[in-house]
């Protein structure tokens, strides 16, 4: 219990960010028209690709001889990049189509 309280204490700023981001996330897209649901989902999909930053950090810290970790990390970087790059490009293509229709 004490360790958890300690953890909360050391991460209190992060916890504030979480709480505020939840409200912000809900507010920011609150009035989206239903035609934009799919592109917005796709855009949000690209944004959670930030997870790649974790993959880069983890990869950069692996000792050069630890091949299992290097390979897993490499895989994580590739998958994360796919998420980011693919996500943004697909969203752009969707919105492009959207504009032509209008």
């Amino acid at each position, binding site marked *: 219990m004490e360790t958890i309280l300690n953890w909360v204490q050391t991460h209190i700023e992060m916890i504030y960010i979480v709480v505020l981001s*939840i409200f912000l996330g809900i507010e920011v897209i609150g009035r989206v028209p239903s035609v934009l649901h799919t592109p917005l*989902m796709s*855009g949000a999909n690209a944004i959670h690709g930030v*997870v790649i930053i974790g993959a*880069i950090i983890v990869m950069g810290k692996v000792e050069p001889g630890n091949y299992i970790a290097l390979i897993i990390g490499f895989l994580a970087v590739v998958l*994360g990049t796919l998420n980011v790059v693919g996500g943004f490009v697909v969203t752009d293509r969707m919105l492009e189509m959207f504009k032509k229709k209008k």
Partner: protein
Amino acid sequence: MELSLLTVCYLIGSLTFIIGLKMLSHPDSARKGNMVAAVGMAVAIFGTIFLYEEEGKKLGNYEWIFGGLVLGTVIGVLAAKKVKMTAMPEMVSLFNGMGGACAALISFIEFDHIKHALSDGLSLQLHAGTLITIFLGLIIGSVSFAGSVIAWGKLNGKIKDFAFPGQQIFNLVLLAATLVTAGYLVLNLNADNYWLFYGIAIASLVYGVLFVLPIGGADMPVVISLLNSFTGVAAACGGFLYDNQVMLTGGILVGAAGTLLTILMCKAMNRSLTNVLIGSFGGNATGTSSG
């Protein structure tokens, strides 16, 4: 973290995500919003590669990092450009699954470090909170990965609906067992029981598969949106792990916005989320695992 150029990069990243999401929810500015978020993402990624340091040490293994980035970019751009307009939702689902897998793999490597320390007999001063975020990243990431791949397969017709009697109950039991095991490990991790970590990974994958399998093809966009917000939360776990603000804001923003978007999508189809998740086949509505 003291104020550094990297902190500013992360601030820019977080801001562009917020502005990008805002612009994405208006028809006129949507395309620009996507660009804004993409630029912010690039700033955050390259900032991390070149500026990140811990205890004065910069990141290493640049050739692996750049190799991964280049490979991912080439495949990502090709896949995204080649996909037919009608097949886009399934592509989104696949990319979402990649993000989930990425989060789960990060947990794997972090756990690998802990495992080595345990088997060397070192006494680790582990924060329970660190373990919780590692396990949450693993579970949510794996569920999201497995679920997204199934959703992708369903949308392109490769995978058929499948349900067995009592599946809802089985799913709930499986999820509960996974969470209880994770909780047990958080409190009692030692050199004899660390293998349970891999059991949790497998159970999460199975849960992800079983969670999506019975849901009808027409409801897939809603499910993808839900899994999308899951991956957001998994990314945020990484933010906690590395005290990384941009992962945290990005992840939680998507988690929150994605959950709301899921509900809005249900409303647009005149369905409720519960209905989508458990109403696809008649049966025991014991619980709404809307997570």
